[in-house]
């Protein structure tokens, strides 16, 4: 049992657990909307486009969370400018606009990394380093998690309706475009929290994998969100234990554990269909 209990006697492991659970809860609960609103590509893009902000924050000595958030804001504005309003007048579809901005911002991040310092110093931005999250960023992750979960609860019926019937959402005056902006804003917040846990490349896994796994067990929204959060927490705990005991990267270990839960859920679904 030492492999199971000893790791938690270290302060950095307990901090990592708290940070991982905050980011995991926000990403997993929101992930159900990301999956069923067919926004997985937007989630993927949001995580990659944090890179230039993270690099600039690292080089300037600022908070990584603030850098990532600023980067995501620029991304949202860029996507909105290219595809917002009468998109066909500007000739750019939603997914094309996301693709252009996402790859452009990621390329900018790589160039900044190349210009600004050694790859070794900055590689934790790509892969995440949950074991070395600063106290300031740790608090940001907790607050981001609380904001995301509070918004999901407060706007539950409006977010739910706009996810399956945009026309009726507009008809009764809620405004589906407004709700889409809210979801994108929440994804941006959750991604900023997730990036520091598992890194730029793997953050979309925190958004999508637990939600996709939970969808194997239920067809109800709220139970699906709760199961997704539970699975994300399981992945965080198991991933941290794996990383500590086998000396593996923590972020990749967490995502690998989430992927294993997905495979297990898929097999369970096949057996119980």
């Amino acid at each position, binding site marked *: 049992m030492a492999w199971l209990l000893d790791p938690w006697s270290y302060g950095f492991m307990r901090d990592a657990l708290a940070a991982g659970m905050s980011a995991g809860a926000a990403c997993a609960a929101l992930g159900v909307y990301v999956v069923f609103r067919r926004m997985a590509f937007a989630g993927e893009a949001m995580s990659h486009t944090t890179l230039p902000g993270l690099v600039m924050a690292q080089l300037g000595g600022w908070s990584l969370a603030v850098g990532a958030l600023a980067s995501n804001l620029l991304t949202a504005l860029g996507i909105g400018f290219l595809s917002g309003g009468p998109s066909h007048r500007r000739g750019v579809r939603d997914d094309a606009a996301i693709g252009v901005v996402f790859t452009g911002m990621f390329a900018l991040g790589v160039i900044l990394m190349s210009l600004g310092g050694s790859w070794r110093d900055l590689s934790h931005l790509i892969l995440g380093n949950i074991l070395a999250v600063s106290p300031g960023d740790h608090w940001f992750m907790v607050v981001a998690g609380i904001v995301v979960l509070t918004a999901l609860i*407060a706007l539950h*019926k409006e977010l*739910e309706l706009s996810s*399956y019937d945009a*026309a*009726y959402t507009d*008809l009764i*005056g*809620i405004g589906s475009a407004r709700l889409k902006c809210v979801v994108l804003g929440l994804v941006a917040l959750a991604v900023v929290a997730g990036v520091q846990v598992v890194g730029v490349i793997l953050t979309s896994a925190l958004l999508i994998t637990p939600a996709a796994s939970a969808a194997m067990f239920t067809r*109800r929204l709220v139970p699906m969100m709760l199961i997704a959060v539970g699975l994300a927490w399981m992945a965080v705990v198991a991933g941290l234990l794996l990383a500590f005991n086998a000396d593996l990267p923590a972020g990749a270990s967490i995502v690998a554990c989430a992927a294993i839960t997905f495979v297990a859920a898929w097999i369970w679904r096949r057996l119980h269909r």
Partner: protein
Amino acid sequence: MKFEWLAYGGRHLHAPDRTMPALLVRGLDVGYPGQARSVVEAVSFKLPIGARLALVGPNGSGKSTLLKTIAGLLQPRSGEIRVFGLKVGACHHRTSYLPQREEINWEFPVSVERFVLAGRFVHCGWFALPNAEDRAQVDATLEELDLTSIRETAIGDLSGGQKQRIMLARAVAQGADLLLLDEPLNAVDVATRATVARVLTRLQGQGKSMIVSTHDLGLHDHPFDGVLALEGGSLQEVPYGMAP
């Protein structure tokens, strides 16, 4: 609604003006951005309160565009629309629009009961939850449309006819006075057709007004008070008593 300032879009419940027709459309022209040609051109008619109107025309004749514009989902290029004497969207409670089935994301994890309950959201507004009265209304509607036994079923598991019935149930639960139904009998079974006919007749008896679009009048067993024929975006004929 307990707190009026929580109303969606800041629009409150207005009593219908019984001296005005349920719907008045004058010189309506609708088109999509970037397209010079209008999809609906110079359409004018009125719908008296309690009347049931059929909107017929081949696919692509502009039926759905016209209904969406009346519902406030599309902005007209020119012309005027009044719902019970009010501008479109002035009172979100009064109008309900049943889209074609393909416009709904049926994969979303929501139950039949929850889907129908959404008809009551406009009476709740932001942040408020449906109350006991709202739930009682939903129970009665589910019963009327023979949906009680599948109330816990996910909407993605429903047949075409059941999907049509839950969309009608949501409009009934909303308590709207003007119903805009886009091809409600398209690809549904005989039992669903009979149920829809029964419910529409009851609603008309309560003074509700409705426009039902269809590409085949033969699908409808119940009589209409008039037929609007739309072709190439223009009305071919306006029924007696329905000219504005």
